[in-house]
Protein backbone atom coordinates (compact mmCIF):
# COMPACT_ATOMS: atom_id res chain seq x y z
CA UNK A 1 0.00 0.00 0.00
CA UNK A 2 1.31 3.43 -0.97
CA UNK A 3 1.51 5.89 1.90
CA UNK A 4 2.98 8.74 -0.14
CA UNK A 5 2.57 9.01 -3.88
CA UNK A 6 3.94 11.81 -6.03
CA UNK A 7 3.09 11.88 -9.72
CA UNK A 8 4.83 14.34 -12.04
CA UNK A 9 5.02 17.07 -9.42
CA UNK A 10 6.57 20.31 -10.66
CA UNK A 11 6.95 23.62 -8.91
CA UNK A 12 8.73 26.79 -9.95
CA UNK A 13 9.44 29.23 -7.18
CA UNK A 14 11.68 32.24 -6.71
CA UNK A 15 12.50 31.47 -3.11
CA UNK A 16 12.94 27.70 -3.29
CA UNK A 17 14.72 25.22 -5.53
CA UNK A 18 12.53 24.20 -8.46
CA UNK A 19 10.95 20.76 -8.61
CA UNK A 20 10.83 19.19 -12.05
CA UNK A 21 8.50 16.30 -12.77
CA UNK A 22 9.14 14.46 -9.50
CA UNK A 23 7.52 11.06 -9.09
CA UNK A 24 8.01 8.37 -6.46
CA UNK A 25 6.05 6.12 -4.15
CA UNK A 26 6.66 5.46 -0.45
CA UNK A 27 5.15 2.16 0.63
CA UNK A 28 3.70 1.18 4.00
CA UNK A 29 6.50 0.19 6.39
CA UNK A 30 9.28 1.78 4.31
CA UNK A 31 12.11 3.84 5.66
CA UNK A 32 12.39 5.93 2.56
CA UNK A 33 15.34 8.25 2.06
CA UNK A 34 15.25 11.18 -0.33
CA UNK A 35 18.91 11.83 -0.97
CA UNK A 36 20.22 14.98 -2.55
CA UNK A 37 22.79 17.70 -2.13
CA UNK A 38 21.95 21.14 -0.69
CA UNK A 39 19.48 23.03 -2.84
CA UNK A 40 18.39 19.96 -4.73
CA UNK A 41 14.74 20.40 -3.65
CA UNK A 42 14.40 17.89 -0.79
CA UNK A 43 12.80 20.35 1.63
CA UNK A 44 10.56 21.71 -1.13
CA UNK A 45 9.17 18.19 -1.62
CA UNK A 46 8.44 18.01 2.13
CA UNK A 47 6.81 21.45 1.99
CA UNK A 48 4.56 20.17 -0.78
CA UNK A 49 3.71 17.02 1.20
CA UNK A 50 2.76 19.05 4.27
CA UNK A 51 0.82 21.61 2.21
CA UNK A 52 3.18 24.44 3.13
CA UNK A 53 3.22 24.96 -0.64
CA UNK A 54 -0.38 24.65 -1.81
CA UNK A 55 0.18 25.50 -5.48
CA UNK A 56 2.03 23.10 -7.77
CA UNK A 57 1.35 20.95 -10.82
CA UNK A 58 1.00 17.17 -10.72
CA UNK A 59 -0.64 15.11 -8.03
CA UNK A 60 0.28 14.27 -4.45
CA UNK A 61 -1.50 11.85 -2.19
CA UNK A 62 -0.77 10.79 1.37
CA UNK A 63 -2.87 7.93 2.76
CA UNK A 64 -4.85 8.31 -0.49
CA UNK A 65 -5.80 11.83 0.53
CA UNK A 66 -4.99 15.11 -1.17
CA UNK A 67 -2.92 17.36 1.16
CA UNK A 68 -4.60 20.46 -0.30
CA UNK A 69 -8.08 19.31 0.58
CA UNK A 70 -7.59 17.03 3.55
CA UNK A 71 -4.38 18.41 5.04
CA UNK A 72 -5.74 18.35 8.60
CA UNK A 73 -6.72 14.67 8.38
CA UNK A 74 -3.28 13.80 7.02
CA UNK A 75 -1.51 15.75 9.76
CA UNK A 76 -3.47 13.84 12.39
CA UNK A 77 -1.59 10.72 11.30
CA UNK A 78 1.68 12.38 10.55
CA UNK A 79 4.63 13.60 12.64
CA UNK A 80 7.13 16.09 11.26
CA UNK A 81 10.64 17.08 12.26
CA UNK A 82 11.92 20.14 10.39
CA UNK A 83 15.58 20.57 9.46
CA UNK A 84 15.97 23.54 11.77
CA UNK A 85 13.33 23.21 14.47
CA UNK A 86 12.64 26.51 16.18
CA UNK A 87 10.25 27.01 19.01
CA UNK A 88 9.42 30.10 20.99
CA UNK A 89 12.49 30.84 23.08
CA UNK A 90 10.40 31.82 26.10
CA UNK A 91 8.72 28.40 26.22
CA UNK A 92 9.91 25.28 27.99
CA UNK A 93 10.23 21.88 26.39
CA UNK A 94 7.29 20.59 28.41
CA UNK A 95 5.11 23.50 27.21
CA UNK A 96 5.68 22.50 23.58
CA UNK A 97 4.99 18.83 24.30
CA UNK A 98 1.93 19.76 26.33
CA UNK A 99 0.50 21.85 23.48
CA UNK A 100 1.08 19.06 20.96
CA UNK A 101 -0.46 16.50 23.33
CA UNK A 102 -3.55 18.67 23.76
CA UNK A 103 -3.99 19.37 20.05
CA UNK A 104 -3.41 15.74 19.13
CA UNK A 105 -5.58 14.57 22.04
CA UNK A 106 -2.87 12.19 23.25
CA UNK A 107 -2.69 11.95 27.00
CA UNK A 108 -0.02 9.28 27.27
CA UNK A 109 2.54 11.39 29.10
CA UNK A 110 4.49 8.27 30.15
CA UNK A 111 5.76 7.95 26.59
CA UNK A 112 6.98 11.54 26.63
CA UNK A 113 8.80 10.97 29.91
CA UNK A 114 10.33 7.72 28.61
CA UNK A 115 11.51 9.41 25.42
CA UNK A 116 12.94 12.38 27.33
CA UNK A 117 14.79 10.04 29.67
CA UNK A 118 16.06 7.99 26.74
CA UNK A 119 17.60 11.07 25.13
CA UNK A 120 18.50 12.77 28.40
CA UNK A 121 16.36 15.83 27.65
CA UNK A 122 15.25 18.09 30.50
CA UNK A 123 11.61 18.89 29.83
CA UNK A 124 11.53 21.97 32.03
CA UNK A 125 14.48 23.60 30.28
CA UNK A 126 13.71 26.77 28.33
CA UNK A 127 14.11 26.54 24.55
CA UNK A 128 16.44 29.54 24.67
CA UNK A 129 18.81 27.56 26.89
CA UNK A 130 18.75 24.44 24.70
CA UNK A 131 21.43 23.54 22.17
CA UNK A 132 20.55 22.92 18.51
CA UNK A 133 20.92 19.21 19.16
CA UNK A 134 18.52 19.32 22.12
CA UNK A 135 15.98 21.33 20.08
CA UNK A 136 16.18 18.74 17.35
CA UNK A 137 15.64 15.91 19.82
CA UNK A 138 12.72 17.79 21.38
CA UNK A 139 11.23 18.20 17.92
CA UNK A 140 11.68 14.47 17.31
CA UNK A 141 10.01 13.56 20.61
CA UNK A 142 7.25 16.02 19.72
CA UNK A 143 6.74 14.23 16.41
CA UNK A 144 6.80 10.62 17.59
CA UNK A 145 5.29 10.40 21.08
CA UNK A 146 1.74 10.06 19.73
CA UNK A 147 2.95 7.26 17.44
CA UNK A 148 1.93 8.60 14.04
CA UNK A 149 1.52 6.29 11.05
CA UNK A 150 3.88 8.42 9.01
CA UNK A 151 6.96 10.26 10.20
CA UNK A 152 8.46 12.94 7.96
CA UNK A 153 12.01 13.96 8.82
CA UNK A 154 13.89 16.76 7.11
CA UNK A 155 17.64 16.20 7.56
CA UNK A 156 17.13 14.38 10.88
CA UNK A 157 20.82 13.95 11.69
CA UNK A 158 21.89 17.49 10.87
CA UNK A 159 23.21 19.28 13.95
CA UNK A 160 22.89 16.27 16.25
CA UNK A 161 25.55 15.43 18.84
CA UNK A 162 27.44 12.22 18.18
CA UNK A 163 26.09 10.82 21.46
CA UNK A 164 22.51 11.31 20.25
CA UNK A 165 23.05 10.22 16.65
CA UNK A 166 23.02 6.48 17.29
CA UNK A 167 20.10 6.79 19.71
CA UNK A 168 18.04 8.56 17.06
CA UNK A 169 18.86 5.91 14.47
CA UNK A 170 17.99 3.15 16.94
CA UNK A 171 14.69 4.84 17.78
CA UNK A 172 13.78 5.23 14.11
CA UNK A 173 14.52 1.58 13.47
CA UNK A 174 12.52 0.56 16.54
CA UNK A 175 9.53 2.64 15.43
CA UNK A 176 9.72 1.18 11.95
CA UNK A 177 10.14 -2.44 13.06
CA UNK A 178 7.94 -2.61 16.13
CA UNK A 179 5.31 0.06 15.47
CA UNK A 180 5.24 -0.36 11.69
CA UNK A 181 5.74 3.36 11.29
CA UNK A 182 6.45 4.53 7.74
CA UNK A 183 9.36 6.93 7.73
CA UNK A 184 10.16 9.45 5.03
CA UNK A 185 13.43 11.29 5.49
CA UNK A 186 15.67 13.56 3.51
CA UNK A 187 19.42 13.53 3.78
CA UNK A 188 22.53 14.54 1.89
CA UNK A 189 24.53 11.62 3.25
CA UNK A 190 24.30 8.36 1.39
CA UNK A 191 25.71 6.52 4.44
CA UNK A 192 22.47 7.31 6.31
CA UNK A 193 20.60 5.54 3.52
CA UNK A 194 22.95 2.61 3.77
CA UNK A 195 22.45 2.28 7.52
CA UNK A 196 18.74 3.04 7.85
CA UNK A 197 16.68 3.12 4.69
CA UNK A 198 14.94 0.29 2.96
CA UNK A 199 14.38 2.29 -0.21
CA UNK A 200 15.73 5.55 -1.46
CA UNK A 201 15.42 8.10 -4.24
CA UNK A 202 18.08 10.43 -5.55
CA UNK A 203 17.03 14.00 -6.18
CA UNK A 204 19.25 16.33 -8.19
CA UNK A 205 18.34 19.87 -9.28
CA UNK A 206 14.69 19.20 -8.51
CA UNK A 207 14.45 15.99 -10.51
CA UNK A 208 14.04 12.60 -8.91
CA UNK A 209 16.65 10.65 -10.84
CA UNK A 210 16.08 7.14 -9.65
CA UNK A 211 14.26 5.16 -6.96
CA UNK A 212 16.20 2.15 -5.72
CA UNK A 213 16.11 -0.53 -3.08
CA UNK A 214 18.95 -0.27 -0.57
CA UNK A 215 20.30 -3.62 -1.76
CA UNK A 216 20.92 -2.09 -5.18
CA UNK A 217 23.30 0.36 -3.60
CA UNK A 218 25.15 -2.38 -1.73
CA UNK A 219 25.28 -4.84 -4.61
CA UNK A 220 26.38 -2.22 -7.11
CA UNK A 221 29.90 -2.95 -8.40
CA UNK A 222 31.00 0.66 -7.93
CA UNK A 223 33.34 1.46 -5.06
CA UNK A 224 35.24 4.57 -4.04
CA UNK A 225 38.94 3.81 -3.66
CA UNK A 226 41.43 5.88 -1.73
CA UNK A 227 44.98 4.51 -1.97
CA UNK A 228 48.50 5.54 -0.97
CA UNK A 229 50.76 3.98 -3.58
CA UNK A 230 54.47 4.42 -4.31
CA UNK A 231 55.19 5.23 -7.94
CA UNK A 232 53.19 6.47 -10.88
CA UNK A 233 50.02 4.40 -11.25
CA UNK A 234 48.53 6.29 -14.19
CA UNK A 235 48.96 3.26 -16.49
CA UNK A 236 46.43 1.45 -14.31
CA UNK A 237 43.89 4.20 -14.92
CA UNK A 238 44.32 3.83 -18.67
CA UNK A 239 44.25 0.06 -18.47
CA UNK A 240 41.11 -0.15 -16.34
CA UNK A 241 39.43 2.90 -17.92
CA UNK A 242 39.28 4.80 -14.61
CA UNK A 243 38.23 8.47 -14.85
CA UNK A 244 37.78 11.33 -12.38
CA UNK A 245 41.01 10.68 -10.48
CA UNK A 246 41.83 13.20 -7.77
CA UNK A 247 44.83 13.58 -5.46
CA UNK A 248 44.41 14.36 -1.77
CA UNK A 249 47.84 14.67 -0.17
CA UNK A 250 49.62 11.39 -0.77
CA UNK A 251 46.36 9.59 -1.46
CA UNK A 252 44.88 9.04 -4.86
CA UNK A 253 41.07 8.90 -4.96
CA UNK A 254 39.00 7.42 -7.74
CA UNK A 255 35.79 5.57 -8.48
CA UNK A 256 36.20 2.00 -9.64
CA UNK A 257 33.50 0.10 -11.47
CA UNK A 258 33.93 -3.60 -12.24
CA UNK A 259 35.62 -6.60 -10.73
CA UNK A 260 37.69 -5.41 -7.77
CA UNK A 261 40.13 -8.31 -8.27
CA UNK A 262 41.25 -6.72 -11.54
CA UNK A 263 42.25 -3.63 -9.61
CA UNK A 264 44.12 -5.68 -7.00
CA UNK A 265 45.95 -7.60 -9.73
CA UNK A 266 47.04 -4.36 -11.35
CA UNK A 267 48.09 -2.87 -8.02
CA UNK A 268 50.26 -5.95 -7.32
CA UNK A 269 52.97 -4.36 -9.42
CA UNK A 270 53.18 -1.38 -7.04
CA UNK A 271 53.96 -0.92 -3.37
CA UNK A 272 50.60 -0.14 -1.77
CA UNK A 273 51.07 1.50 1.66
CA UNK A 274 47.39 2.02 2.45
CA UNK A 275 44.05 1.44 0.74
CA UNK A 276 40.46 2.27 1.72
CA UNK A 277 37.44 0.90 -0.09
CA UNK A 278 34.04 2.44 0.58
CA UNK A 279 30.61 2.82 -0.95
CA UNK A 280 30.35 5.67 -3.47
CA UNK A 281 29.25 9.00 -2.03
CA UNK A 282 26.23 10.97 -3.21
CA UNK A 283 27.98 12.88 -5.99
CA UNK A 284 29.48 9.61 -7.23
CA UNK A 285 26.06 8.01 -7.42
CA UNK A 286 24.62 11.05 -9.21
CA UNK A 287 27.54 11.05 -11.69
CA UNK A 288 27.05 7.34 -12.22
CA UNK A 289 23.34 7.75 -12.94
CA UNK A 290 24.04 10.55 -15.40
CA UNK A 291 26.81 8.52 -17.07
CA UNK A 292 24.47 5.57 -17.48
CA UNK A 293 21.75 7.81 -18.89
CA UNK A 294 24.22 9.33 -21.36
CA UNK A 295 25.40 5.87 -22.36
CA UNK A 296 21.83 4.75 -22.91
CA UNK A 297 21.17 7.83 -25.03
CA UNK A 298 24.33 7.24 -27.07
CA UNK A 299 23.33 3.61 -27.62
CA UNK A 300 19.89 4.71 -28.76
CA UNK A 301 21.40 7.19 -31.22
CA UNK A 302 23.78 4.51 -32.52
CA UNK A 303 20.90 2.07 -32.96
CA UNK A 304 18.93 4.71 -34.85
CA UNK A 305 21.93 5.38 -37.13
CA UNK A 306 22.31 1.65 -37.84
CA UNK A 307 18.61 1.41 -38.65
CA UNK A 308 18.86 4.38 -41.01
Amino acid sequence: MAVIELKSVSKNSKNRPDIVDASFVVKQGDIFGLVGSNGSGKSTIIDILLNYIPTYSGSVSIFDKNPKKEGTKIKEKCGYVPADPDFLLSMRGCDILDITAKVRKCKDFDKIIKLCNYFGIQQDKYIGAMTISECKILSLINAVFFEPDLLILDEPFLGLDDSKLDKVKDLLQYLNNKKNMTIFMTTDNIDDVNKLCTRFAIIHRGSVLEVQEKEQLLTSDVRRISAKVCGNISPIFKLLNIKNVTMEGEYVNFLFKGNINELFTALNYYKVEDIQISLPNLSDVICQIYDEKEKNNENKIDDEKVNV
Partner: protein
Amino acid sequence: MVFLSTPIFGQDLRCRVSSILKWLVFTVIATLGIYLLIYNLYISGIPDFVNDLLISLPDEIRALIYIEKIPDFSNVTFDYAVCMQVLLIIGCGYACYLGCSSFLVNKNNGTLKYIHSLPITRTCVVITRFFAQVTILIIYDILLVFLNIWIASGLNVSSFIFNIPNIFCAMLMGELFFLSLGFAISCIVKFQSTPYTFAFGSLLFCLVMDILYKLFSKEILSDLVLISHYSVYNIIMNNTNISFMTAFTSIIFCLLSVLISSLIYKYKEL
Protein backbone atom coordinates in the same frame (compact mmCIF):
# COMPACT_ATOMS: atom_id res chain seq x y z
CA MET B 1 -13.95 28.99 22.18
CA VAL B 2 -12.37 26.26 20.06
CA PHE B 3 -9.96 28.85 18.72
CA LEU B 4 -8.84 29.86 22.18
CA SER B 5 -7.71 26.32 22.91
CA THR B 6 -5.31 26.17 19.97
CA PRO B 7 -1.61 26.63 20.62
CA ILE B 8 -1.36 29.75 18.48
CA PHE B 9 -3.46 31.71 20.93
CA GLY B 10 -1.22 30.90 23.87
CA GLN B 11 1.95 31.31 21.82
CA ASP B 12 0.89 34.71 20.53
CA LEU B 13 0.06 35.95 24.00
CA ARG B 14 3.40 34.71 25.28
CA CYS B 15 5.49 36.26 22.55
CA ARG B 16 3.66 39.58 22.86
CA VAL B 17 4.16 40.05 26.59
CA SER B 18 7.44 41.90 26.11
CA SER B 19 5.89 43.94 23.30
CA ILE B 20 3.02 45.12 25.55
CA LEU B 21 5.48 46.13 28.26
CA LYS B 22 7.71 47.99 25.78
CA TRP B 23 4.79 49.92 24.32
CA LEU B 24 3.43 50.68 27.76
CA VAL B 25 6.78 52.08 28.85
CA PHE B 26 6.84 54.11 25.64
CA THR B 27 3.31 55.33 26.37
CA VAL B 28 4.18 56.34 29.93
CA ILE B 29 7.31 58.18 28.75
CA ALA B 30 5.27 59.94 26.03
CA THR B 31 2.62 60.93 28.58
CA LEU B 32 5.18 62.23 31.04
CA GLY B 33 6.90 64.06 28.16
CA ILE B 34 3.65 65.81 27.26
CA TYR B 35 3.08 66.77 30.89
CA LEU B 36 6.57 68.20 31.19
CA LEU B 37 6.18 70.06 27.90
CA ILE B 38 2.87 71.56 28.97
CA TYR B 39 4.23 72.42 32.41
CA ASN B 40 7.35 74.07 30.98
CA LEU B 41 5.33 75.99 28.43
CA TYR B 42 3.01 77.13 31.15
CA ILE B 43 5.65 78.40 33.56
CA SER B 44 8.22 79.71 31.09
CA GLY B 45 6.13 82.40 29.45
CA ILE B 46 6.76 80.91 26.02
CA PRO B 47 3.01 80.92 25.21
CA ASP B 48 2.92 84.71 25.50
CA PHE B 49 5.93 85.00 23.23
CA VAL B 50 4.42 82.61 20.65
CA ASN B 51 1.06 84.36 20.86
CA ASP B 52 2.73 87.70 20.11
CA LEU B 53 4.48 86.05 17.19
CA LEU B 54 1.24 84.58 15.87
CA ILE B 55 -0.61 87.88 16.17
CA SER B 56 2.08 89.52 14.07
CA LEU B 57 1.44 87.02 11.24
CA PRO B 58 -1.01 87.91 8.43
CA ASP B 59 -4.55 86.55 8.94
CA GLU B 60 -4.31 84.34 5.80
CA ILE B 61 -1.28 82.47 7.10
CA ARG B 62 -2.82 81.99 10.53
CA ALA B 63 -5.92 80.57 8.86
CA LEU B 64 -3.76 78.23 6.80
CA ILE B 65 -1.88 76.77 9.74
CA TYR B 66 -5.07 76.75 11.80
CA ILE B 67 -3.47 78.24 14.87
CA GLU B 68 -4.97 81.49 15.97
CA LYS B 69 -3.21 81.40 19.31
CA ILE B 70 -1.51 78.98 21.65
CA PRO B 71 -4.12 77.00 23.59
CA ASP B 72 -4.69 77.79 27.20
CA PHE B 73 -2.64 75.16 28.99
CA SER B 74 -3.95 76.23 32.31
CA ASN B 75 -7.20 74.55 31.24
CA VAL B 76 -6.95 71.12 32.88
CA THR B 77 -9.65 69.63 30.65
CA PHE B 78 -7.72 70.63 27.57
CA ASP B 79 -4.46 69.14 28.92
CA TYR B 80 -6.22 65.89 29.71
CA ALA B 81 -7.86 65.74 26.27
CA VAL B 82 -4.58 66.38 24.44
CA CYS B 83 -2.86 63.74 26.53
CA MET B 84 -5.54 61.15 25.82
CA GLN B 85 -5.52 61.97 22.11
CA VAL B 86 -1.78 61.30 22.04
CA LEU B 87 -2.39 58.00 23.85
CA LEU B 88 -4.98 57.12 21.20
CA ILE B 89 -2.47 57.79 18.41
CA ILE B 90 0.16 55.66 20.18
CA GLY B 91 -2.44 52.93 20.73
CA CYS B 92 -3.44 52.97 17.07
CA GLY B 93 0.23 52.79 16.10
CA TYR B 94 0.66 49.79 18.38
CA ALA B 95 -2.45 48.11 16.98
CA CYS B 96 -1.21 48.62 13.44
CA TYR B 97 2.20 47.26 14.40
CA LEU B 98 0.56 44.22 16.02
CA GLY B 99 -1.57 43.58 12.97
CA CYS B 100 1.30 44.05 10.52
CA SER B 101 3.57 41.68 12.40
CA SER B 102 0.89 39.02 13.03
CA PHE B 103 2.15 36.54 10.48
CA LEU B 104 5.72 37.73 10.23
CA VAL B 105 6.34 37.08 13.91
CA ASN B 106 6.18 33.33 13.23
CA LYS B 107 8.69 33.60 10.46
CA ASN B 108 11.01 35.56 12.69
CA ASN B 109 10.84 33.19 15.65
CA GLY B 110 10.60 30.11 13.44
CA THR B 111 7.39 28.71 14.90
CA LEU B 112 5.60 28.69 11.56
CA LYS B 113 6.51 25.12 10.65
CA TYR B 114 5.65 23.85 14.12
CA ILE B 115 2.18 25.39 14.08
CA HIS B 116 1.39 24.15 10.60
CA SER B 117 2.61 20.63 11.35
CA LEU B 118 -0.28 20.30 13.81
CA PRO B 119 -3.70 19.19 12.60
CA ILE B 120 -5.18 22.69 12.49
CA THR B 121 -6.71 24.31 9.42
CA ARG B 122 -5.25 27.52 8.05
CA THR B 123 -8.57 29.32 8.60
CA CYS B 124 -8.38 28.33 12.25
CA VAL B 125 -4.84 29.74 12.40
CA VAL B 126 -6.01 33.09 10.99
CA ILE B 127 -9.05 33.42 13.25
CA THR B 128 -7.18 32.35 16.37
CA ARG B 129 -4.38 34.75 15.59
CA PHE B 130 -6.83 37.61 15.20
CA PHE B 131 -8.50 36.78 18.51
CA ALA B 132 -5.09 36.65 20.15
CA GLN B 133 -4.22 40.10 18.81
CA VAL B 134 -7.56 41.52 19.97
CA THR B 135 -6.94 40.04 23.43
CA ILE B 136 -3.51 41.66 23.49
CA LEU B 137 -5.08 45.00 22.58
CA ILE B 138 -7.70 44.65 25.30
CA ILE B 139 -4.94 43.96 27.85
CA TYR B 140 -3.05 46.99 26.56
CA ASP B 141 -6.18 49.14 26.77
CA ILE B 142 -6.97 47.98 30.29
CA LEU B 143 -3.48 49.03 31.28
CA LEU B 144 -4.13 52.34 29.53
CA VAL B 145 -7.31 52.79 31.57
CA PHE B 146 -5.22 52.61 34.72
CA LEU B 147 -2.87 55.16 33.19
CA ASN B 148 -5.93 57.23 32.33
CA ILE B 149 -7.15 57.13 35.93
CA TRP B 150 -3.68 58.07 37.11
CA ILE B 151 -3.60 61.04 34.71
CA ALA B 152 -7.10 62.12 35.73
CA SER B 153 -6.29 61.90 39.43
CA GLY B 154 -2.94 63.66 38.84
CA LEU B 155 -4.73 66.53 37.14
CA ASN B 156 -7.39 66.43 39.83
CA VAL B 157 -10.14 65.97 37.24
CA SER B 158 -12.18 63.27 38.94
CA SER B 159 -15.27 64.21 36.91
CA PHE B 160 -13.57 62.83 33.78
CA ILE B 161 -13.41 59.37 35.28
CA PHE B 162 -17.05 59.01 34.18
CA ASN B 163 -15.81 59.37 30.63
CA ILE B 164 -13.47 56.40 30.94
CA PRO B 165 -15.87 53.77 29.47
CA ASN B 166 -16.43 56.05 26.46
CA ILE B 167 -12.72 56.66 26.07
CA PHE B 168 -11.98 52.94 26.38
CA CYS B 169 -14.60 52.14 23.76
CA ALA B 170 -13.30 54.79 21.33
CA MET B 171 -9.71 53.67 21.78
CA LEU B 172 -10.55 50.00 21.31
CA MET B 173 -12.60 50.68 18.18
CA GLY B 174 -9.84 52.83 16.71
CA GLU B 175 -7.22 50.25 17.53
CA LEU B 176 -9.40 47.45 16.09
CA PHE B 177 -9.63 49.35 12.83
CA PHE B 178 -5.87 49.74 12.58
CA LEU B 179 -5.28 46.17 13.74
CA SER B 180 -7.53 44.86 10.97
CA LEU B 181 -5.79 47.03 8.41
CA GLY B 182 -2.38 45.75 9.49
CA PHE B 183 -3.63 42.16 9.76
CA ALA B 184 -4.79 42.05 6.15
CA ILE B 185 -1.55 43.67 4.98
CA SER B 186 0.52 41.19 7.02
CA CYS B 187 -1.16 38.32 5.23
CA ILE B 188 -0.28 39.76 1.83
CA VAL B 189 3.29 40.98 2.26
CA LYS B 190 6.34 39.02 3.29
CA PHE B 191 9.01 41.64 3.93
CA GLN B 192 10.24 41.77 7.49
CA SER B 193 10.55 45.55 7.68
CA THR B 194 6.92 46.06 6.65
CA PRO B 195 5.35 46.06 10.13
CA TYR B 196 7.32 49.08 11.22
CA THR B 197 7.05 50.87 7.88
CA PHE B 198 3.33 50.29 7.55
CA ALA B 199 2.45 51.03 11.18
CA PHE B 200 4.13 54.40 11.15
CA GLY B 201 3.24 55.03 7.52
CA SER B 202 -0.47 54.71 8.24
CA LEU B 203 -0.25 57.14 11.14
CA LEU B 204 1.69 59.55 8.98
CA PHE B 205 -1.00 59.15 6.31
CA CYS B 206 -3.64 60.20 8.88
CA LEU B 207 -1.64 63.26 9.85
CA VAL B 208 -1.07 64.22 6.21
CA MET B 209 -4.79 63.82 5.51
CA ASP B 210 -5.51 66.01 8.52
CA ILE B 211 -3.28 68.77 7.12
CA LEU B 212 -4.78 68.40 3.62
CA TYR B 213 -8.28 68.57 5.07
CA LYS B 214 -7.41 71.79 6.85
CA LEU B 215 -5.92 73.20 3.66
CA PHE B 216 -8.68 72.26 1.25
CA SER B 217 -11.68 71.69 3.57
CA LYS B 218 -12.93 68.75 1.50
CA GLU B 219 -15.32 66.42 3.32
CA ILE B 220 -13.81 63.33 1.69
CA LEU B 221 -10.48 64.21 3.22
CA SER B 222 -12.04 64.45 6.66
CA ASP B 223 -13.23 60.86 6.25
CA LEU B 224 -9.67 59.78 5.58
CA VAL B 225 -8.45 61.30 8.83
CA LEU B 226 -9.11 57.91 10.38
CA ILE B 227 -8.12 58.78 13.92
CA SER B 228 -10.54 61.73 14.03
CA HIS B 229 -13.46 59.26 13.92
CA TYR B 230 -12.32 57.85 17.24
CA SER B 231 -11.31 61.20 18.70
CA VAL B 232 -11.10 60.96 22.48
CA TYR B 233 -10.32 64.68 22.39
CA ASN B 234 -13.90 65.33 21.28
CA ILE B 235 -15.27 62.91 23.88
CA ILE B 236 -13.53 64.79 26.67
CA MET B 237 -13.92 68.34 25.41
CA ASN B 238 -17.43 68.12 23.93
CA ASN B 239 -18.82 65.23 26.02
CA THR B 240 -19.71 63.32 22.86
CA ASN B 241 -19.73 59.56 22.32
CA ILE B 242 -18.20 57.50 19.56
CA SER B 243 -20.85 57.30 16.82
CA PHE B 244 -22.71 54.05 16.22
CA MET B 245 -21.73 54.22 12.55
CA THR B 246 -18.04 54.43 13.42
CA ALA B 247 -18.24 51.47 15.78
CA PHE B 248 -20.24 49.49 13.23
CA THR B 249 -17.73 50.31 10.47
CA SER B 250 -14.86 49.17 12.68
CA ILE B 251 -16.50 45.83 13.39
CA ILE B 252 -17.44 45.26 9.75
CA PHE B 253 -13.89 46.17 8.74
CA CYS B 254 -12.59 43.60 11.28
CA LEU B 255 -14.76 40.85 9.86
CA LEU B 256 -13.80 41.73 6.29
CA SER B 257 -10.15 41.77 7.22
CA VAL B 258 -10.33 38.31 8.81
CA LEU B 259 -12.29 36.97 5.83
CA ILE B 260 -9.83 38.36 3.26
CA SER B 261 -6.85 37.19 5.32
CA SER B 262 -8.31 33.67 5.58
CA LEU B 263 -8.82 33.48 1.83
CA ILE B 264 -5.32 34.74 1.07
CA TYR B 265 -3.65 32.61 3.75
CA LYS B 266 -5.34 29.47 2.48
CA TYR B 267 -3.36 29.61 -0.75
CA LYS B 268 -0.21 31.25 0.57
CA GLU B 269 3.20 29.57 0.47
CA LEU B 270 4.67 29.34 3.93
